[in-house]
Protein backbone atom coordinates (compact mmCIF):
# COMPACT_ATOMS: atom_id res chain seq x y z
CA UNK A 1 0.00 0.00 0.00
CA UNK A 2 2.77 2.43 0.97
CA UNK A 3 4.68 1.45 -2.17
CA UNK A 4 1.67 2.20 -4.34
CA UNK A 5 1.15 5.60 -2.72
CA UNK A 6 4.85 6.42 -3.12
CA UNK A 7 4.77 5.42 -6.79
CA UNK A 8 1.67 7.48 -7.49
CA UNK A 9 3.15 10.49 -5.71
CA UNK A 10 6.27 10.13 -7.83
CA UNK A 11 4.13 9.95 -11.00
CA UNK A 12 2.22 13.11 -10.08
CA UNK A 13 5.41 15.00 -9.21
CA UNK A 14 6.96 14.02 -12.56
CA UNK A 15 3.84 14.79 -14.58
CA UNK A 16 3.45 18.26 -13.06
CA UNK A 17 6.97 19.31 -12.13
CA UNK A 18 9.17 17.85 -14.86
CA UNK A 19 7.96 20.13 -17.71
CA UNK A 20 9.52 23.16 -15.93
CA UNK A 21 12.92 21.51 -15.85
CA UNK A 22 13.00 19.87 -19.29
CA UNK A 23 11.29 22.79 -21.00
CA UNK A 24 14.02 25.19 -19.83
CA UNK A 25 16.39 27.02 -22.14
CA UNK A 26 19.00 24.28 -22.32
CA UNK A 27 16.78 22.12 -24.56
CA UNK A 28 17.53 24.21 -27.68
CA UNK A 29 21.25 23.63 -27.13
CA UNK A 30 20.90 19.85 -26.90
CA UNK A 31 17.71 18.90 -28.77
CA UNK A 32 18.48 15.21 -28.98
CA UNK A 33 19.10 14.90 -25.24
CA UNK A 34 16.01 16.99 -24.52
CA UNK A 35 13.83 14.68 -26.65
CA UNK A 36 15.25 11.63 -24.88
CA UNK A 37 14.54 13.27 -21.51
CA UNK A 38 10.92 14.01 -22.46
CA UNK A 39 10.45 10.45 -23.60
CA UNK A 40 12.11 8.94 -20.52
CA UNK A 41 10.05 11.10 -18.18
CA UNK A 42 6.84 10.13 -19.95
CA UNK A 43 7.85 6.47 -19.71
CA UNK A 44 8.66 7.02 -16.02
CA UNK A 45 5.13 8.28 -15.33
CA UNK A 46 3.55 5.36 -17.19
CA UNK A 47 5.78 2.79 -15.44
CA UNK A 48 5.06 4.31 -12.02
CA UNK A 49 1.30 4.15 -12.47
CA UNK A 50 1.48 0.65 -13.92
CA UNK A 51 3.60 -0.61 -11.02
CA UNK A 52 1.45 1.19 -8.44
CA UNK A 53 -1.50 -0.77 -9.79
CA UNK A 54 0.42 -4.05 -9.81
CA UNK A 55 1.73 -3.66 -6.24
CA UNK A 56 -1.84 -3.18 -5.05
CA UNK A 57 -2.64 -6.56 -6.57
CA UNK A 58 0.07 -8.29 -4.53
CA UNK A 59 -1.17 -9.22 -1.08
CA UNK A 60 0.92 -7.37 1.49
CA UNK A 61 2.31 -10.12 3.69
CA UNK A 62 2.79 -12.65 0.95
CA UNK A 63 6.15 -11.74 -0.55
CA UNK A 64 8.06 -11.29 2.70
CA UNK A 65 7.16 -14.86 3.67
CA UNK A 66 8.86 -16.39 0.66
CA UNK A 67 7.68 -17.77 -2.61
CA UNK A 68 6.12 -20.98 -1.25
CA UNK A 69 4.11 -19.01 1.24
CA UNK A 70 3.29 -16.60 -1.54
CA UNK A 71 1.60 -19.35 -3.51
CA UNK A 72 -0.45 -20.33 -0.48
CA UNK A 73 -1.10 -16.69 0.29
CA UNK A 74 -2.13 -16.18 -3.28
CA UNK A 75 -4.84 -18.81 -3.06
CA UNK A 76 -5.84 -17.57 0.37
CA UNK A 77 -6.08 -14.01 -0.86
CA UNK A 78 -8.21 -14.86 -3.84
CA UNK A 79 -10.60 -16.58 -1.45
CA UNK A 80 -10.31 -13.81 1.10
CA UNK A 81 -10.67 -10.96 -1.31
CA UNK A 82 -14.30 -11.54 -1.98
CA UNK A 83 -15.44 -11.38 1.64
CA UNK A 84 -13.02 -8.69 2.76
CA UNK A 85 -14.16 -5.27 1.57
CA UNK A 86 -10.81 -3.63 2.39
CA UNK A 87 -8.86 -6.03 0.16
CA UNK A 88 -11.40 -5.90 -2.61
CA UNK A 89 -11.15 -2.15 -2.95
CA UNK A 90 -7.35 -2.38 -3.12
CA UNK A 91 -7.55 -5.02 -5.83
CA UNK A 92 -10.14 -3.02 -7.75
CA UNK A 93 -7.99 0.10 -7.53
CA UNK A 94 -5.02 -1.93 -8.74
CA UNK A 95 -6.89 -3.36 -11.70
CA UNK A 96 -8.27 0.07 -12.59
CA UNK A 97 -4.85 1.72 -12.45
CA UNK A 98 -2.71 -0.77 -14.33
CA UNK A 99 -5.34 -2.38 -16.55
CA UNK A 100 -7.19 0.85 -17.26
CA UNK A 101 -4.05 2.72 -18.20
CA UNK A 102 -2.74 -0.05 -20.47
CA UNK A 103 -6.07 -0.49 -22.20
CA UNK A 104 -6.56 3.23 -22.74
CA UNK A 105 -3.07 3.57 -24.17
CA UNK A 106 -3.44 0.56 -26.48
CA UNK A 107 -6.83 1.76 -27.68
CA UNK A 108 -5.68 5.30 -28.50
CA UNK A 109 -2.46 4.04 -30.10
CA UNK A 110 -4.34 1.61 -32.33
CA UNK A 111 -6.85 4.26 -33.38
CA UNK A 112 -4.13 6.83 -34.10
CA UNK A 113 -2.19 4.26 -36.08
CA UNK A 114 -5.18 3.48 -38.27
CA UNK A 115 -6.03 7.14 -38.75
CA UNK A 116 -2.45 8.03 -39.66
CA UNK A 117 -2.28 5.21 -42.16
CA UNK A 118 -5.50 6.30 -43.82
CA UNK A 119 -4.45 9.95 -43.91
CA UNK A 120 -1.00 9.09 -45.23
CA UNK A 121 -2.58 7.05 -47.99
CA UNK A 122 -4.98 9.86 -48.91
CA UNK A 123 -2.21 12.46 -48.83
CA UNK A 124 0.02 10.39 -51.04
CA UNK A 125 -2.77 9.91 -53.58
CA UNK A 126 -3.64 13.61 -53.43
CA UNK A 127 -0.09 14.92 -53.71
CA UNK A 128 1.46 12.47 -56.09
CA UNK A 129 -1.24 12.67 -58.74
CA UNK A 130 0.38 14.98 -61.22
CA UNK A 131 3.79 15.17 -59.55
CA UNK A 132 7.03 14.17 -61.23
CA UNK A 133 10.01 12.48 -59.65
CA UNK A 134 13.26 14.39 -59.91
CA UNK A 135 15.97 11.88 -59.18
CA UNK A 136 18.77 14.49 -59.25
CA UNK A 137 17.14 16.07 -56.18
CA UNK A 138 15.92 12.85 -54.61
CA UNK A 139 12.54 14.54 -54.38
CA UNK A 140 9.16 14.78 -56.04
CA UNK A 141 8.26 18.05 -57.76
CA UNK A 142 4.74 19.47 -57.91
CA UNK A 143 3.63 22.21 -60.29
CA UNK A 144 2.44 25.04 -58.07
CA UNK A 145 2.99 28.77 -57.63
CA UNK A 146 2.82 28.24 -53.88
CA UNK A 147 6.37 27.80 -52.54
CA UNK A 148 6.43 24.80 -50.25
CA UNK A 149 8.77 22.03 -49.16
CA UNK A 150 7.76 19.11 -46.99
CA UNK A 151 8.20 15.40 -46.50
CA UNK A 152 5.78 12.51 -46.22
CA UNK A 153 7.17 10.07 -43.68
CA UNK A 154 6.23 6.42 -43.52
CA UNK A 155 7.06 3.38 -45.58
CA UNK A 156 7.26 5.12 -48.98
CA UNK A 157 8.96 8.21 -47.62
CA UNK A 158 9.13 11.15 -49.98
CA UNK A 159 10.44 14.70 -50.04
CA UNK A 160 8.11 17.04 -51.95
CA UNK A 161 9.00 20.43 -53.44
CA UNK A 162 6.88 22.77 -55.51
CA UNK A 163 8.10 24.41 -58.70
CA UNK A 164 7.69 27.81 -57.00
CA UNK A 165 10.02 26.68 -54.19
CA UNK A 166 12.56 25.50 -56.75
CA UNK A 167 12.47 28.88 -58.50
CA UNK A 168 12.68 30.89 -55.27
CA UNK A 169 15.43 29.06 -53.42
CA UNK A 170 19.10 29.51 -54.30
CA UNK A 171 21.18 26.39 -54.84
CA UNK A 172 22.62 26.61 -51.33
CA UNK A 173 19.22 27.13 -49.73
CA UNK A 174 17.76 24.22 -51.70
CA UNK A 175 20.53 21.93 -50.47
CA UNK A 176 19.72 23.05 -46.93
CA UNK A 177 16.01 22.30 -47.33
CA UNK A 178 16.68 18.87 -48.81
CA UNK A 179 19.15 18.00 -46.04
CA UNK A 180 16.61 19.13 -43.42
CA UNK A 181 13.83 16.98 -44.86
CA UNK A 182 16.15 14.01 -45.33
CA UNK A 183 17.12 14.31 -41.65
CA UNK A 184 13.45 14.12 -40.67
CA UNK A 185 12.97 10.99 -42.74
CA UNK A 186 16.24 9.33 -41.73
CA UNK A 187 15.68 10.05 -38.03
CA UNK A 188 12.04 8.92 -38.22
CA UNK A 189 11.06 12.06 -36.36
CA UNK A 190 7.40 11.44 -37.09
CA UNK A 191 7.50 8.47 -34.72
CA UNK A 192 8.69 10.63 -31.80
CA UNK A 193 5.99 13.19 -32.55
CA UNK A 194 3.38 10.46 -33.03
CA UNK A 195 4.17 8.77 -29.71
CA UNK A 196 3.95 12.07 -27.84
CA UNK A 197 0.63 12.81 -29.56
CA UNK A 198 -0.77 9.45 -28.53
CA UNK A 199 0.11 10.12 -24.89
CA UNK A 200 -1.45 13.57 -24.87
CA UNK A 201 -4.56 12.27 -26.57
CA UNK A 202 -4.89 9.24 -24.28
CA UNK A 203 -4.42 11.25 -21.08
CA UNK A 204 -5.55 14.81 -21.80
CA UNK A 205 -4.79 17.50 -19.23
CA UNK A 206 -1.55 15.94 -17.96
CA UNK A 207 0.95 18.84 -18.13
CA UNK A 208 3.89 16.59 -18.99
CA UNK A 209 2.12 15.08 -22.00
CA UNK A 210 0.50 18.28 -23.26
CA UNK A 211 3.73 20.24 -23.05
CA UNK A 212 5.69 17.26 -24.35
CA UNK A 213 3.98 17.23 -27.75
CA UNK A 214 4.67 20.91 -28.38
CA UNK A 215 8.27 20.59 -27.22
CA UNK A 216 9.05 17.46 -29.23
CA UNK A 217 7.58 19.05 -32.37
CA UNK A 218 9.83 22.07 -31.81
CA UNK A 219 12.88 19.98 -30.95
CA UNK A 220 12.72 17.65 -33.97
CA UNK A 221 12.78 20.75 -36.20
CA UNK A 222 15.94 21.91 -34.44
CA UNK A 223 17.42 18.45 -34.73
CA UNK A 224 16.78 18.47 -38.50
CA UNK A 225 18.17 22.03 -38.73
CA UNK A 226 21.35 20.90 -36.98
CA UNK A 227 21.68 17.87 -39.23
CA UNK A 228 21.30 20.10 -42.29
CA UNK A 229 23.80 22.60 -40.86
CA UNK A 230 26.28 19.75 -40.57
CA UNK A 231 26.02 19.02 -44.30
CA UNK A 232 25.64 22.45 -45.87
CA UNK A 233 26.49 25.96 -44.76
CA UNK A 234 24.33 26.75 -41.70
CA UNK A 235 23.68 30.30 -42.94
CA UNK A 236 22.05 28.80 -46.06
CA UNK A 237 19.69 26.70 -43.92
CA UNK A 238 18.68 29.82 -41.99
CA UNK A 239 18.32 31.72 -45.25
CA UNK A 240 16.01 29.04 -46.69
CA UNK A 241 13.76 29.30 -43.62
CA UNK A 242 13.48 33.07 -44.00
CA UNK A 243 12.95 32.86 -47.76
CA UNK A 244 10.10 30.36 -47.51
CA UNK A 245 8.51 32.17 -44.57
CA UNK A 246 8.63 35.39 -46.62
CA UNK A 247 6.85 33.69 -49.54
CA UNK A 248 3.87 32.68 -47.47
CA UNK A 249 0.66 34.62 -47.66
CA UNK A 250 0.58 36.87 -44.59
CA UNK A 251 -1.64 35.09 -42.11
CA UNK A 252 -2.25 35.68 -38.44
CA UNK A 253 0.79 34.26 -36.68
CA UNK A 254 0.63 33.11 -33.10
CA UNK A 255 3.23 34.83 -30.95
CA UNK A 256 4.44 31.47 -29.60
CA UNK A 257 4.86 30.01 -33.10
CA UNK A 258 6.65 33.15 -34.21
CA UNK A 259 9.03 32.93 -31.24
CA UNK A 260 9.87 29.34 -32.20
CA UNK A 261 10.55 30.40 -35.79
CA UNK A 262 12.81 33.27 -34.77
CA UNK A 263 14.72 31.00 -32.38
CA UNK A 264 15.30 28.44 -35.15
CA UNK A 265 16.84 31.07 -37.41
CA UNK A 266 18.94 32.78 -34.74
CA UNK A 267 20.37 29.57 -33.35
CA UNK A 268 21.46 28.61 -36.86
CA UNK A 269 23.15 31.97 -37.35
CA UNK A 270 24.76 32.09 -33.91
CA UNK A 271 25.14 28.56 -32.61
CA UNK A 272 25.20 28.55 -28.81
CA UNK A 273 27.89 26.58 -27.04
CA UNK A 274 26.83 23.00 -26.51
CA UNK A 275 25.84 22.27 -22.94
CA UNK A 276 28.60 21.29 -20.52
CA UNK A 277 29.47 17.58 -20.20
CA UNK A 278 28.47 17.62 -16.52
CA UNK A 279 25.05 19.01 -17.42
CA UNK A 280 24.72 16.43 -20.19
CA UNK A 281 25.64 13.64 -17.77
CA UNK A 282 23.14 14.88 -15.18
CA UNK A 283 20.32 14.98 -17.74
CA UNK A 284 21.18 11.50 -18.99
CA UNK A 285 21.34 10.14 -15.43
CA UNK A 286 17.99 11.76 -14.61
CA UNK A 287 16.48 10.20 -17.73
CA UNK A 288 17.67 6.76 -16.62
CA UNK A 289 16.60 7.30 -13.00
CA UNK A 290 13.03 8.35 -13.73
CA UNK A 291 12.43 4.94 -15.29
CA UNK A 292 14.59 2.69 -13.10
CA UNK A 293 13.60 4.52 -9.89
CA UNK A 294 9.97 3.37 -9.86
CA UNK A 295 11.02 -0.17 -10.78
CA UNK A 296 13.46 -0.26 -7.84
CA UNK A 297 10.82 1.21 -5.52
CA UNK A 298 8.26 -1.41 -6.54
CA UNK A 299 10.75 -4.27 -6.26
CA UNK A 300 12.18 -3.11 -2.92
CA UNK A 301 10.00 -5.35 -0.67
CA UNK A 302 10.95 -8.35 -2.79
CA UNK A 303 14.66 -7.49 -2.75
CA UNK A 304 14.73 -6.91 1.00
CA UNK A 305 12.92 -10.21 1.57
CA UNK A 306 15.50 -12.11 -0.48
CA UNK A 307 18.39 -10.29 1.18
CA UNK A 308 17.10 -11.09 4.68
CA UNK A 309 17.55 -14.81 4.00
CA UNK A 310 14.02 -15.60 5.11
CA UNK A 311 12.87 -16.04 1.58
CA UNK A 312 13.82 -19.56 0.41
CA UNK A 313 12.86 -20.78 -3.01
CA UNK A 314 11.30 -24.25 -3.01
CA UNK A 315 13.92 -26.87 -3.91
CA UNK A 316 16.85 -24.49 -3.64
CA UNK A 317 19.53 -25.23 -1.10
CA UNK A 318 21.58 -22.09 -0.50
CA UNK A 319 23.51 -23.22 2.58
Amino acid at each position, binding site marked *: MITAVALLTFAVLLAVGAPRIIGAGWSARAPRLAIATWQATSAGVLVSVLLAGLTLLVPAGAISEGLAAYLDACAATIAAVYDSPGQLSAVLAGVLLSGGMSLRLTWVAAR*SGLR*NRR*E*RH*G*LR*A*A*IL*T*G*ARRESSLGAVV*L*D*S*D*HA*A*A*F*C*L*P*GRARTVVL*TTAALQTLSAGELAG*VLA*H*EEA*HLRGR*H*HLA*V*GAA*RILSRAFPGVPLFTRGVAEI*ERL*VEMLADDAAAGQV*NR*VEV*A*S*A*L*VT*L*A*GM*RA*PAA*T*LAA*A*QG*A*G*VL*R*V*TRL*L*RPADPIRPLHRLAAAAAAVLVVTGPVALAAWPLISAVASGLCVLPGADWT
Partner: protein
Amino acid sequence: MAVRPFGELEAAVMQVLWHRGEPATVREVLAELAASRSLAYTTVMTVMDNLHRKGALQREMAGRAWRYSPTRTRAEHSAAMLQEVLSAAGDRDEVLMHFVADLDADAVASLRAAVEAARQAQTS
Protein backbone atom coordinates in the same frame (compact mmCIF):
# COMPACT_ATOMS: atom_id res chain seq x y z
CA MET B 1 -15.50 23.79 -54.88
CA ALA B 2 -13.59 21.68 -52.39
CA VAL B 3 -10.91 19.55 -54.02
CA ARG B 4 -10.89 15.92 -53.04
CA PRO B 5 -8.13 13.44 -53.69
CA PHE B 6 -8.91 10.91 -56.40
CA GLY B 7 -9.31 7.23 -55.73
CA GLU B 8 -6.78 4.92 -57.31
CA LEU B 9 -8.80 4.15 -60.45
CA GLU B 10 -9.98 7.76 -60.70
CA ALA B 11 -6.35 8.90 -60.61
CA ALA B 12 -5.48 6.42 -63.38
CA VAL B 13 -8.30 7.76 -65.56
CA MET B 14 -7.23 11.37 -64.93
CA GLN B 15 -3.64 10.50 -65.83
CA VAL B 16 -4.78 9.05 -69.16
CA LEU B 17 -6.86 12.13 -69.98
CA TRP B 18 -4.17 14.59 -68.93
CA HIS B 19 -1.63 12.67 -70.96
CA ARG B 20 -3.77 12.62 -74.12
CA GLY B 21 -4.46 16.34 -73.97
CA GLU B 22 -7.69 15.91 -75.96
CA PRO B 23 -11.20 14.66 -75.15
CA ALA B 24 -11.64 10.88 -75.10
CA THR B 25 -14.52 8.42 -74.98
CA VAL B 26 -14.88 5.76 -72.30
CA ARG B 27 -13.80 3.14 -74.85
CA GLU B 28 -10.60 5.03 -75.66
CA VAL B 29 -9.71 5.44 -71.99
CA LEU B 30 -10.45 1.76 -71.41
CA ALA B 31 -8.13 0.82 -74.27
CA GLU B 32 -5.24 2.74 -72.69
CA LEU B 33 -5.91 1.41 -69.21
CA ALA B 34 -6.31 -2.16 -70.46
CA ALA B 35 -2.60 -2.22 -71.29
CA SER B 36 -1.74 -2.44 -67.60
CA ARG B 37 -4.84 -4.01 -66.02
CA SER B 38 -8.03 -5.83 -66.93
CA LEU B 39 -11.13 -3.72 -66.47
CA ALA B 40 -14.75 -3.97 -67.51
CA TYR B 41 -16.20 -1.29 -69.77
CA THR B 42 -18.93 -0.58 -67.24
CA THR B 43 -16.37 -0.05 -64.45
CA VAL B 44 -14.55 2.64 -66.39
CA MET B 45 -17.85 4.16 -67.46
CA THR B 46 -18.99 4.39 -63.82
CA VAL B 47 -15.71 5.95 -62.70
CA MET B 48 -15.82 8.55 -65.47
CA ASP B 49 -19.46 9.29 -64.80
CA ASN B 50 -18.59 9.87 -61.12
CA LEU B 51 -15.71 12.15 -62.06
CA HIS B 52 -18.09 14.13 -64.26
CA ARG B 53 -20.62 14.37 -61.45
CA LYS B 54 -17.89 15.60 -59.05
CA GLY B 55 -16.88 18.27 -61.54
CA ALA B 56 -13.46 16.88 -62.41
CA LEU B 57 -14.45 16.03 -65.99
CA GLN B 58 -16.60 17.85 -68.53
CA ARG B 59 -18.21 16.07 -71.46
CA GLU B 60 -19.81 16.74 -74.80
CA MET B 61 -21.75 14.46 -77.11
CA ALA B 62 -19.79 13.60 -80.23
CA GLY B 63 -21.56 11.24 -82.57
CA ARG B 64 -23.21 8.63 -80.35
CA ALA B 65 -20.75 8.76 -77.41
CA TRP B 66 -19.77 11.22 -74.71
CA ARG B 67 -16.27 12.61 -75.04
CA TYR B 68 -14.70 13.55 -71.70
CA SER B 69 -11.96 16.04 -70.84
CA PRO B 70 -10.55 17.31 -67.51
CA THR B 71 -11.91 20.60 -66.18
CA ARG B 72 -8.54 21.51 -64.65
CA THR B 73 -5.06 20.99 -65.98
CA ARG B 74 -2.74 18.72 -64.07
CA ALA B 75 -0.93 21.76 -62.63
CA GLU B 76 -4.17 23.41 -61.53
CA HIS B 77 -5.27 20.23 -59.87
CA SER B 78 -2.04 19.68 -57.95
CA ALA B 79 -1.91 23.33 -56.89
CA ALA B 80 -5.46 23.19 -55.52
CA MET B 81 -4.72 19.85 -53.87
CA LEU B 82 -1.58 21.23 -52.28
CA GLN B 83 -3.38 24.20 -50.71
CA GLU B 84 -5.98 21.85 -49.31
CA VAL B 85 -3.41 19.42 -47.94
CA LEU B 86 -1.14 22.03 -46.36
CA SER B 87 -3.99 23.82 -44.64
CA ALA B 88 -5.62 20.63 -43.37
CA ALA B 89 -2.55 18.61 -42.46
CA GLY B 90 -0.32 21.51 -41.42
CA ASP B 91 -0.50 20.55 -37.78
CA ARG B 92 -0.26 16.79 -38.25
CA ASP B 93 3.45 16.09 -38.05
CA GLU B 94 2.95 12.34 -38.07
CA VAL B 95 1.80 12.41 -41.68
CA LEU B 96 3.46 15.50 -43.10
CA MET B 97 6.46 17.50 -41.92
CA HIS B 98 6.44 20.96 -43.44
CA PHE B 99 9.62 23.02 -43.84
CA VAL B 100 8.29 26.29 -42.55
CA ALA B 101 8.60 28.77 -39.74
CA ASP B 102 5.76 31.06 -38.75
CA LEU B 103 7.17 34.55 -39.16
CA ASP B 104 5.37 37.82 -39.81
CA ALA B 105 6.64 40.43 -42.27
CA ASP B 106 8.64 42.36 -39.64
CA ALA B 107 10.38 39.23 -38.40
CA VAL B 108 11.15 38.17 -41.98
CA ALA B 109 12.72 41.56 -42.71
CA SER B 110 14.91 41.65 -39.60
CA LEU B 111 15.96 38.00 -39.92
CA ARG B 112 16.76 38.53 -43.60
CA ALA B 113 19.12 41.33 -42.56
CA ALA B 114 20.70 39.05 -39.94
CA VAL B 115 21.18 36.29 -42.55
CA GLU B 116 22.85 38.70 -44.98
CA ALA B 117 25.14 39.99 -42.23
CA ALA B 118 26.14 36.42 -41.34
CA ARG B 119 26.77 35.65 -45.02
CA GLN B 120 29.00 38.75 -45.31
CA ALA B 121 30.91 37.75 -42.19
CA GLN B 122 31.53 34.29 -43.64
CA THR B 123 32.82 35.40 -47.02
CA SER B 124 35.03 38.23 -45.75
